[in-house]
């Protein structure tokens, strides 16, 4: 089901959390709300779920105005950063909760719960309590619980934020595959641009309660709407009035008109990728992303003087 967010405003005392925010989420898509902490992304998600009320504006789910509706009547599946597992219930009862509230027959609930536990790879752990699960398992349980009610939309609030890097990468991958199977309209809140780029079809970049840009991961990276998006989504250096990404700097051994002279401070190897940390005459630092082969070809070493030139730069009016 589609989501349409129209002119939402929200204040907490003097702090403006959301300032006239409008976003559209297409049916069946996976949209990421990406921004630094305090940008209002979680507040926006909670307003869509009905867990927070907006001061102004409207939310439509499947073309219906749900602005005044309580969370119970919105048909959203919500996944919390810290799992919000029902600690006194088994995994089975956690997942069954929404169906038990809807007074579905026991046999039907059991069947659905088993099917969901298989989907999130927790079969066999149905009788455990949340305290007996790892963080990753708890969050998968949280997802199964949210999916049990066949939600119109699935909302995830920094779902992998409390997990360690490897589990996070695994679950991210798995979420994407799950979405490709179920096609439930999904919104994920994250401050991790890599996560947003990897799982989402559409990224809405937020800052200080405003939407800075909405587009595909490639669009926001390659055609950033402004300086904030340029620097928040991926790395960027400012060279005079222009911005350039570390992989869009070409290193040469000889000067050539538009190049600037820099010294190599450090060479960092990440396997195939190599990062050069550079300092120019004014002491300004910048880094270049290149490949191992390129670095070897030029026989680069620290302390060496080289010349850089942007191959592609962006200017904002």
């Amino acid at each position, binding site marked *: 089901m589609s989501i349409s967010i129209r002119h939402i405003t929200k204040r907490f005392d003097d702090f403006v959390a959301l300032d006239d925010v409008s976003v559209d989420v297409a049916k069946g898509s996976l949209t990421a709300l990406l921004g630094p902490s305090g940008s209002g992304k979680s507040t926006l998600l909670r307003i869509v779920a009905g867990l927070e009320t907006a001061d102004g504006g409207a939310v439509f789910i499947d073309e219906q105005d749900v602005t005044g509706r309580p*969370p119970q009547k919105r048909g959203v599946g*919500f996944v919390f950063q*810290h799992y*919000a597992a029902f600690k006194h219930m088994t995994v089975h009862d956690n997942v069954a909760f929404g169906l038990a509230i809807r007074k579905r027959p026991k046999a039907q609930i059991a069947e659905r719960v088993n099917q969901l536990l298989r989907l999130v790879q927790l079969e066999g752990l149905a009788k455990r309590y949340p305290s007996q699960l790892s963080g990753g398992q708890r969050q998968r349980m949280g997802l199964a619980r949210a999916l049990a*009610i066949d939600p119109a939309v699935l909302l995830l609030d920094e779902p992998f934020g409390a997990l360690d890097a490897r589990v996070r990468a695994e679950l991210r991958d798995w979420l994407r595959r799950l979405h490709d199977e179920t096609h439930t309209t999904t919104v994920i809140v994250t401050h991790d641009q890599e996560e947003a780029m990897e799982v989402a079809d559409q990224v809405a970049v937020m800052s200080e309660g405003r939407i800075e840009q909405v587009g595909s991961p490639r669009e926001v990276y390659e055609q950033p709407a402004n300086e904030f998006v340029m620097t928040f989504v991926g790395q960027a250096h400012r060279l005079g009035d222009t911005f350039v990404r570390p992989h869009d700097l070409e290193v040469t051994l000889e000067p050539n008109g538009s190049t600037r002279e820099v010294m190599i401070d450090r060479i960092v190897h990440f396997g195939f990728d190599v990062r050069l940390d550079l300092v120019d005459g004014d002491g300004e630092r910048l880094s270049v992303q290149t490949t191992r082969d390129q670095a070897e070809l030029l026989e680069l070493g620290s302390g060496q003087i080289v010349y850089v030139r942007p191959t592609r730069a962006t200017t904002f009016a």
Partner: protein
Amino acid sequence: MGRLSLRVVALGYLTLILIGPLAMMVWRTAEDLDGAWAAITDPDTVAAFELTLKVAAIAVAVNTVFGIVCALVIVRGNIRGRGLLNAFIDLPLALSPVIVGFALIALYGVNGWFGWFQRNGFEILFATPGIVLATIFVTLPFVAREVVPTLREIGTEQEQAAQTLGASGWQTFWRITLPSIRWAVVYGVVLTTARAIGEFGAVALVSGNIAGQTQTATLRVEDAYQFAYGNYAPAYGISFVLAATAILILVLMIVLQPKGTRH
């Protein structure tokens, strides 16, 4: 060495202050078991125990419900004045029970604001309702005091998750909130029960102290002591039952304390 002497000091202190008097009482009870037994099985004593249990049951029931409600308002409510409520709820702990009893006499006495009841034959003072009111007053903080920190600790996320899954406020309370705070409630109930059974000062003023009618177990101990005329066996016997009940409650509390869920 230092640790050992600290332990000796602590244990010695407990023995002198707590165990000593109780041990002496048990000893005296044992000296005249027949006299003690006769006093315990006296119809007026049985009536006193019945009244104490009845009053305690009502006070526990009322203060459990309102204790949970107050805790919810203190922790979750976004109304003004919840700070005041939080401070106010401890008032019975600070106030002398005698003053509580006296204040109730002032309020419900024939010339008090609520004197209408007393004047029109709905006796509150010197009758069971007065005893119940006094007991409720002094036992008010215990459930709320236990539940407040637990409610803070569990946070609101589980309740919000239940809501998104379709649970109404009422369903969320019964299925999520109450099970999460159940041990705090149990603990509060146990403390309330112990305090209700042991209350003396406030009850002494409002009860009228009529043997077999408005005399609670603690009042009966006081009576048996005042009018002992050299025979203290009845006072020891009834005291022993009350003390044994208190210790039983204490043991119950330790047994109920689930591993790991309480500090």
